[in-house]
């Protein structure tokens, strides 16, 4: 909402400075977005007299002017066709900034003739697009005067942000009311006196749908003279960014912004004898003022005569029934339109207008007739004419809304002690009624405040005028003496996993929750995850997996020349639209080499075991029972089928998948290099068992030395080493504490279908040192168990 300081002062008698007004507006909830003082930009421009204008010796289109600025006479080369001896124009001296051409003026030579300063057009001062010539001022304009002042461009423009609950502030009068309530002056908005008409209105007015258009008032004004508006009106409209059109249209626009009261003026010669607010049928056409033709879908509120629609009620009038220079008799409409229907109609047809903006937020039903009267007065004053009586269709709205208010609530809800008398003064100055009952007060709500519907709203009104800054900050009472932990298990797990993965060398990424459905399809995406209105086709599906986003990120980093890329993200995946379909997943991704080339380390590409290590690290950090996990070699379809696996607790409970990404998917995603990833399903990790306290079981340590024995087994290539290790560990759970795989060998010396696996077994005596016989027994049982489990044999 834009208005000028001068405009405001027509409604508010105040001695406050612009700065005070600005600060107060923001303080009471009408946030100032900008203040544009044209006096600043126009300061260098003054009135000058062209003493002489002669032809430039070397250029047909240029003139050499001697210009009297009031201080001196300077020579200016000017290209304007209307530059001539004796005229008065607007001069900008050397050193001044000309905003319309973004130029700092400097003395120069133009085609060999010295030129200092500039005679300006309207466009050069950003006043309009007018650039056919320089500005010509009246002959009696004083030389040296400030151009801003003599042109009436010395009125600062204030723009404020209006929250949707404040339609009353969409008129300057409403803003003045708020400022007066805040103590910044007195409201001086002129009262409206009814104008008796000359005979009844000959045009019938009807409203067919009380919901869509509850009230419709109008009158005929005969014998008006349309034409350009007076300068003051044009300036005011231009200042707030509106283009002056014609006197009659400008008057309606003026009242829209002055009183938040949209109006419409019809050329009475172009409409029938009945004007009716009705619902549209499907397929009617509206030839709107914006030059476009709209086809109704049915249900919109139309203003129509017997023949055809004249416009969308509350949104936009029609092209065919509008006023023109030739218009003599006019019909003026002041009506009420339903906010929801207005908004829907506007949205449906993509129509924005100042009227829609106001009607969809709520227009004061008590000002329908007053608005019409105000318009009548302005039209009679500026365009002449004789009005008819007012005709009204529909109902004048019922009495004001009433809200029960306990003044003590300002303190108990708002935290600020405001005496009831003060609250009453504030509310009354805002136009609320105050009537004291036995136990409480009944506040009646003015028609321009449709947002107020309860006591909390009244508290806000009192507080915002009294000042939010007066509310004392009160510490929140402490609930416990020492802060307790407040995170859920899931949250602490996520925290631990992030920190752990970062210590493992991975960088935490945060990527979109949505992705490209064409990629998502390879990762379990389905139609149930599609967005209806994605921001782009690359982000049209909720992600079923984090990996594709990480792959894309790794690819971008790779393109920038990074190597050894390691990323992770702990975040959501979506399997459907339900609450339980959102899962919490930690995903890791590595692309390229393990490390950069190093003198001590064998550099090499990452492989599935790196992904497995990342998965195990994340699981361990999350508190999963890592020692009890089983490795299955099946994994989701986006992994390489032979180089991937899942980590499970029992056959059904999958805690993680990991492995190389499927080569076909890498081709689809256009990524090259070694690419491995893991996904840890944090929600699947079982809750830790409840313990009775923090104390841990007693620790019993043996001082007896451990024994280490190495074995090598020949097993079939297809047999999992994990099975061998499990058999070895299981052969004597009491004494065998650890089994490490130190060698896996295939090749020369071993039959082609087999591999040799070397394990180091750590054997711990419990009560006494082992005898040779004890050890022999343990080793024999181990060999027997491994051979039985794997079908292999000890390598001798």
């Amino acid at each position, binding site marked *: 909402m834009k208005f000028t300081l001068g405009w405001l002062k027509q409604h508010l008698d105040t001695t406050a400075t612009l700065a005070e007004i600005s600060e107060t507006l923001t*303080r009471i*909830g009408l946030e100032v977005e900008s203040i544009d003082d044209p006096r600043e930009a126009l300061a260098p421009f003054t009135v000058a007299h062209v003493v002489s204008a002669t032809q430039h010796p070397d250029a047909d289109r240029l003139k050499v002017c001697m210009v009297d600025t009031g201080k001196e006479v300077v020579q200016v080369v000017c290209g304007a066709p209307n530059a001539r001896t004796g005229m008065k124009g607007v001069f900008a001296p050397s050193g001044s900034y000309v905003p319309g051409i973004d130029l700092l003026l400097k003395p120069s030579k133009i085609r060999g003739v010295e030129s200092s300063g500039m005679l300006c057009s309207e466009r050069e001062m950003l006043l309009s697009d007018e650039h056919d010539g320089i500005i010509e001022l009246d002959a009696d304009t004083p030389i040296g005067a400030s151009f801003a002042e003599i042109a009436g461009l010395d009125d600062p423009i204030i723009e404020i942000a209006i*929250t*949707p*609950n404040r339609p009353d502030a969409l008129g300057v009068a409403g803003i003045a009311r708020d400022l007066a309530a805040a103590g910044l002056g007195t409201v001086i908005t002129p009262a409206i006196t009814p104008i008796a008409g000359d005979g009844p209105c000959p045009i019938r007015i009807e409203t067919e749908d009380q919901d869509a258009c509850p009230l419709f008032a109008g009158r005929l004004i005969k014998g008006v003279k349309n034409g350009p508006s007076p300068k003051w009106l044009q300036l005011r409209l231009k200042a707030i960014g509106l283009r002056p059109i014609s006197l009659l249209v400008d008057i309606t626009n003026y009242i829209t912004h002055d009183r938040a009261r949209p109006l419409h003026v019809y050329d009475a010669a172009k409409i029938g004898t009945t004007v009716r607010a009705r619902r549209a049928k499907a397929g009617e056409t509206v030839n709107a003022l914006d030059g476009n033709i709209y086809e109704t879908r049915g249900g919109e509120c139309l203003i129509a005569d017997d023949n055809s629609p004249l416009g969308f009620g509350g949104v936009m009038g029609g092209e065919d029934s509008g006023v023109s220079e030739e218009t003599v008799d006019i019909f003026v409409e002041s009506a009420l339109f339903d906010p929801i229907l207005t*908004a829907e109609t506007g949205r449906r047809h993509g129509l924005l207008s100042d009227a829609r903006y106001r009607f969809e937020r709520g227009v004061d039903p008590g000002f329908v007739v007053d608005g019409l009267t105000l318009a009548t007065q302005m039209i009679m004053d500026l365009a002449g004419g004789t009005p008819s009586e007012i005709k009204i269709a529909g109902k004048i709205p019922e009495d004001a809304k009433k809200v029960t208010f306990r003044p003590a609530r300002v303190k108990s*809800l708002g*935290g*600020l002690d405001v005496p009831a008398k003060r609250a009453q003064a504030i509310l009354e100055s805002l136009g609320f009624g105050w009537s004291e009952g036995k136990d409480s007060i009944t506040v009646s709500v003015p028609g321009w405040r449709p947002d107020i519907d*309860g006591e*909390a709203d009244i508290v*806000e009104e009192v*507080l*915002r005028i009294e000042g*939010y*800054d007066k*509310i004392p*900050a009160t*510490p*929140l009472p402490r609930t416990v003496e020492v*802060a*307790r*932990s*407040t*995170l859920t298990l899931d*949250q602490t797990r996520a*925290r631990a996993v*992030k*920190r*752990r993965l*970062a210590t493992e*060398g991975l*960088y*935490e990424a*945060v*990527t*979109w*929750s949505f992705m490209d459905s064409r990629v998502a399809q390879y990762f379990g995406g389905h139609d*149930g*995850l599609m*967005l*209806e209105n*994605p921001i782009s086709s690359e982000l049209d599906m*909720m992600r079923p997996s984090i990996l594709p986003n990480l792959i894309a*990120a790794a690819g*971008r*980093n790779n393109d*920038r020349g990074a190597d*050894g890329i*390691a*990323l*992770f993200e702990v*975040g*959501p995946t*979506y399997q459907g*639209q339900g609450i339980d379909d*959102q899962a919490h997943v930690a995903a890791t991704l590595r692309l390229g080499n393990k490390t*950069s080339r190093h*003198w*001590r380390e064998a550099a090499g590409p990452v492989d599935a075991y790196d992904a497995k290590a990342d998965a195990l690290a994340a699981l361990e950090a999350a508190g999963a029972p890592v020692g009890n996990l089983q490795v299955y070699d099946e994994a989701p379809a986006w992994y390489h089928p032979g180089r991937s696996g899942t980590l499970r607790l029992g056959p059904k409970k999958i805690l993680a998948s990991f492995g190389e990404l499927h080569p076909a998917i890498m081709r689809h995603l256009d990524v090259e290099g070694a690419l491995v990833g893991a996904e840890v399903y944090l929600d699947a990790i079982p809750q830790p068992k409840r313990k009775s306290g923090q104390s841990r079981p007693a620790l019993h340590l043996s001082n007896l030395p451990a024994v280490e024995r190495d074995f090598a087994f020949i097993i079939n290539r297809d047999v999992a080493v994990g099975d061998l290790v499990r058999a070895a560990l299981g052969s004597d759970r009491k004494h065998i504490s650890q089994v490490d795989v130190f060698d896996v060998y295939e090749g020369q010396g071993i039959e082609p279908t087999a591999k040799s696996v070397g394990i180091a077994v750590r054997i711990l005596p419990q009560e006494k040192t082992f005898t040779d016989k004890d050890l022999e027994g343990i080793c024999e049982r181990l060999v027997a168990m491994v051979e039985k489990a794997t079908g292999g044999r000890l390598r001798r």
Partner: protein
Amino acid sequence: MTDHLETTLLAEINAADSLDALDAVRVKALGKKGLVTGQMKGLGSMSPEERREAGPALNQLKNRINDAIAAKKAVLETAALDARLAEERLDMTLPVSPRSQGRIHPISQVLDELSEIFADLGFAVAEGPHIEDDFHNFTALNIPEHHPARQMHDTFYMRPDETGERKVLRTHTSPVQIRTMQTQTPPIRIIAPGRTFRSDSDATHTPMFHQIEGLVIDKDIHMGHLKGCLEAWLSAFFEVEKVKMRFRPSYFPFTEPSAEVDINCTLRDGTLIVGEGDDWLEVMGCGMVNPHVLTACEVDPNIYQGFAFGAGLDRLAMLKYGMTDLRPFFESDLRWLQHYGFQPLSVPTLAGGLSS
């Protein structure tokens, strides 16, 4: 005879140039068939008188030879160690094996900081689904259909499901308020951080961003407490003595009265400094929970009241750590993560400092 023997042996010991040569001398003198050993064996054939005289002499000779060997051995060992040490040199300027560390994303770090602050204020951390229904995202928050406030949110919608219901991607974290009030009995103190979605994209808007919501419900919580709470956590978060705050009346359908909150800041050498100076910077919206919202959650507004606030988590990170563009937060550029990310073990704590 023994004098000569001793002289010869001592000379040989002295001449030994290695531990092996020295050992050869030892064997020659004191080995089973050694010269001194041989003489000692000769003692048996001597008369007692001769033996009384020769015995101690031979013993002393043996001791002297042993001592000389030990002394020479120490010298040779020192020399050998010196020689070895002279050989054994590593170039310690060579780089060690890389043990790479990753980084924690600023969003996670700031979330940890805020969780720490709010734990001290007694707030639990609540979460909710991202794909929400209309009721929780709008209706229960006093944003009825057709309300102009719905147009304030550039909402993403899911394709309607098989029942025809059209879900939304939550446009704010406020639905978590609703879910919390529906399932918990007051008193309630929660923060609800998380992903939120709006169809918007420029330097400070991305289609996905993070908000943090706060909700306090009890019997006598008023707007003064809201101010006190915000002042406490904003000061703690920005690690300044006390931020200056400005409450501006505003409008949110789910709060009444409502306010937008500015905090003081200043621009010094092109860097934004929060908590100093006299310029204002908008950081969040807040207010007293609208009675309609309490009613929608079946909380009696005649008994309970409280406040709610909502701030941009990413924006808080930007203000604190100086990022000027939101988009790189979600681009996973390793160079950005390296620069703006956090060491994995710099876990924010109240005792150790949030950003130390």
